[in-house]
């Protein structure tokens, strides 16, 4: 190897080394949301099942902590439906299509997304429009007839 060829290779190697030294921590930092779980799991009390009318969704507004460092809580809507057979479902109002806020239309007894016209029935099953999945539910428990939910959905949307 000539001296010239050596210093050509060496400076390319030094450049690569310096680039890697800069890029590694930056890439690791940017990818953090994938391996460092963001947000923490909390449980919120909604209310007694006995106060729910059958097949009439009732809207609760609960505070869930923001991800990150602010310590703030954001309000989220939960649609709670008690079916005739006693089944209770706690729907998020996040549409599975583009995550717009879903509202309940009493006249058609369906949840409607105003963005692109997605429809879900009282069981959260998509019945019209573009949503690819059913309306997600927050995981809930019923203790002594009172509904509690956690900020965790039953499906990845």
């Amino acid at each position, binding site marked *: 190897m000539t001296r010239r060829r050596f210093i050509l290779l060496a400076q390319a190697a030094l450049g690569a080394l310096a680039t890697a030294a800069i890029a590694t921590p930056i890439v690791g930092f940017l990818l953090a949301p994938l391996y460092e779980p963001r947000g923490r799991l909390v449980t919120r009390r909604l209310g007694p099942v006995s106060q729910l009318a059958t097949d009439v969704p009732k809207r609760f507004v609960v505070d869930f902590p923001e991800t990150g460092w602010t310590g703030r809580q954001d309000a989220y809507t939960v649609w709670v439906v008690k079916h005739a057979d006693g089944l209770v479902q706690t729907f998020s109002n996040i549409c599975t299509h583009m995550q717009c806020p879903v*509202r309940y239309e009493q006249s058609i007894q369906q949840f409607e997304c105003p963005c692109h016209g997605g429809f879900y029935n009282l069981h959260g099953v998509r019945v019209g429009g573009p949503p690819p999945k059913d309306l997600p539910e927050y995981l809930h428990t019923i203790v002594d007839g009172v509904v509690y939910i956690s900020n965790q959905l039953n499906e990845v949307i």
Partner: protein
Amino acid sequence: MPSGRRSRGGLLRREMAATRQETTRRLVALGDWLDERTGYRWLLRESLYHAVPTKGGWWYTLGSATLALIGLQITTGIFLIFIYVPSTTEAWSSLEYLKTSDPFGAVVRGMHLWGAYLLLFMIGLHLVRTFMSASYKRPRELNWLTGCILLLLVLGLSITGAFLPDDQAAYWTGVVVTNIPAYIPVIGPYIRDLWRGGPSFGPETLTRTYGIHIWLLASVLIAFIGAHLLLLLKHGEFGSWVNYRGSWRTRPPLPTEELAAQVRQTEPPYPTAPTDEEWSTPLETTDFYPEQTFKDALVSAFLILVVLGLAVVVGAPLEDRADPATITYVPTPEWFFLPLDQLLVLLPQWFISVVIWLPLIGTVFLFAVPWIDRGPERDPFERPAVVIPAVIIILSLLTLTMIGAGRLFTL
């Protein structure tokens, strides 16, 4: 007496002339000093003293207007940083404060918003103009390519900027737009989480998007503007096909001698084999400075005044603070997203990933235009293979925009 006054006046005039001469001499000496050390006169000569095609000069102002509006965005953007706080606790409040307690600041924000809207419009027109006149042909393929990248960067800046106010419009735009990449197969959800900095729109979404907006995209934009302008200087303005002698196929016989006299040696050959050099030289040329720069200045100044007018009269709206719990707010996309939004309404649910593929395929075709349409032909009526698809695409975008606007805003 009168003659004495006259001679005194004459003396004064002579003294003033001498002073002026001395001032000029010193300025020239200063210029010489600076030129010896920087070579700035070479730069001025290279950038200002070249020939441009005479006809269609008003059309070339679209490019300089785009540049002027980008300059306006960078300037107003820098000063908006003086008050904006990229945090979910304070972003909205800082802009609310700007709106209620800082009249000039509100105008600066208004100019940043309307400047962005006008910029998108002008860069679109600039794209259509360069396409219609086939300015992308050899040797200007890379002018086109860098221009396409600049278009994508401007779109990226527009959409990341829309997240930042953290009002209802910004929040729901942020939620929906960060959700679009989730439809990319396999890696999509991860891209969404990386952009958001977590599973949902939160503080990290705002800081990440802010960083992307003010530094990442902006610095890349400036670099590509440099490349775009250097390539423009290298190849010269192509102008429009009307500057050249009819169509290549249907050309009349060339009065070669007469035309050769018009050929300016400063012009690069206007290209595309197989054709002769006289053929590809503009019929008439004029000086870039001050002929073309005057038109550029007129259009750019007019647009900036329009932006100022819109900022003062209409201003930048700030809706209620972001509320994820809302069940009454109807998210509406920014107007430049309307075609995609309307497509989302029309597409059946098993076809959603089209929102990814259609823009992606469109972008690939846009980038590939110089290599698809390689013939020597410049006249848009002689290039149906690319012009007809382009017209169909433009009309589809306009139609989707109009249907979407009718659906959302009940026009």
